[in-house]
């Protein structure tokens, strides 16, 4: 039983060690490409809000469209 506890304790320590060793692997100075406007999920909010409205008025599905979400509840 004691051996089992020791193994459990060691495993937990190892896991904790593994957790603390995970560091942000893409450094801030390596994010220049991600900051390019072409990488934006919502480059022109006025346009994406409009096209979401076009689909939401004609399709059953709604929600999780990106942007601020919420919609106007209008038909």
């Amino acid at each position, binding site marked *: 039983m004691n051996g089992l506890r020791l193994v459990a304790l060691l495993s937990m320590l190892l896991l904790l060690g593994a957790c603390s060793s995970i*560091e*942000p*692997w*893409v450094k*801030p*100075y*390596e*994010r*220049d*490409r*991600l*900051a*390019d406007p*072409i*990488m934006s*999920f919502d480059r*022109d*909010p*006025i*346009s994406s809000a*409009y*096209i979401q409205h*076009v*689909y939401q008025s*004609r*399709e*059953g*599905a*709604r*929600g*999780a*469209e*990106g942007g*601020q*979400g*919420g*919609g*106007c*509840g*209008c*038909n």
Partner: protein
Amino acid sequence: MRKVARVAVVVVTKNPLILRAALAVLLLTAFASEAAILPEDRADALYHSYDGGGVTINGPAIQVRKKVGESFSFSGKYYIDSVSSASIDVVTRASPYTEERKETDASVQYLRDKTTMTLAATYSKENDYLAKSMHFNLSQEVFGGMTTVSMGYSRGWDEVGKRDSNFSENTDRQNYRLGVSQVLTKNMLVDVSAEVITDQGFLNNPYREVRYLVTPTTVDWQAEVYPHTHTSTALAVRAKYYLPYRAALSGEFRYYTDSWGVDANMFELGYTHPVKSGWTIDLRLRHYQQNKADFYSDLFPYVDAQNFLARDKELSTFSSNTFGIGVSYEFARGGLGMIDHGTLNLSYDRIQFNYDDFRVAMAGGTPGTEPLYSFQADVIQFYISLWY
């Protein structure tokens, strides 16, 4: 940020070592705060046009966003839909009509360290429908800026009316949102989001009717009857990948399910390609498919056949496919007066809708054997954006 960088570089240009150090610090501060920043100050003016299935909707939209101090960003939007409808529902059971919907949005964003809070309000009015809503969003950057966790809540109050009558009913809406944005590699971003929406109140269209068989060859019509509650869950995964020659690939998958028995899937692929001298081209393909609600039928067997009755083609089994292209031209790239730069944008989408159990009731012949309905829609957007 741009102005600060210029000044710093001018000051230290004579000492290469300090110059390098200063640039490194500037880059670090610029990118360290990459996710937890307020949106850029910009103004957009859009003209939109939708034409399909006997319906034309067009109008303008204007949006202005401005930072105040280092912590606040305010945004206001005004949007108009001018509708002229002779849709299949309208020509089957009513008369063509025109109407206008006006929407006003206002929002304020507050940034504190790595936390962004947004409060927004929306007011939308047409002659037979009023929708008011409030939205709250909170996002927190964690894990060295590689992860952004966000959550949101919305509350909506609708008043449903009917032209030329005293009909008035209410609908309350609540939205719960949860999302995680993750930097995966130097070239890839992933975004996972979920939204649960629950509505309570009058949820059908007061004008729409369902048809039922009177004899094997004749039909009659009665008003739709919907449940008074509707709860839906949507899950979406989006990814964006930077291609080595400066272009971006994007993909999206969305799954939807609701308490009315509708299940839906959506896939979208996009490609953004900047061309030299300020031109950017966007291409997109989208596929959507859903199955019908439990209480939907194109033709009910007899009057009051069920507790709930719907013949809204939005609740039928159908699919839609979109091909879209956008062209954007960036002007005043070096700045012009108060403007940092601007873009002119033209976008076109062709959507094909194919219904699997919604028939052209007017076609005649034996009820239930009429041709299935389908239509194409052309969606055009033209807009100018200015950054300042």
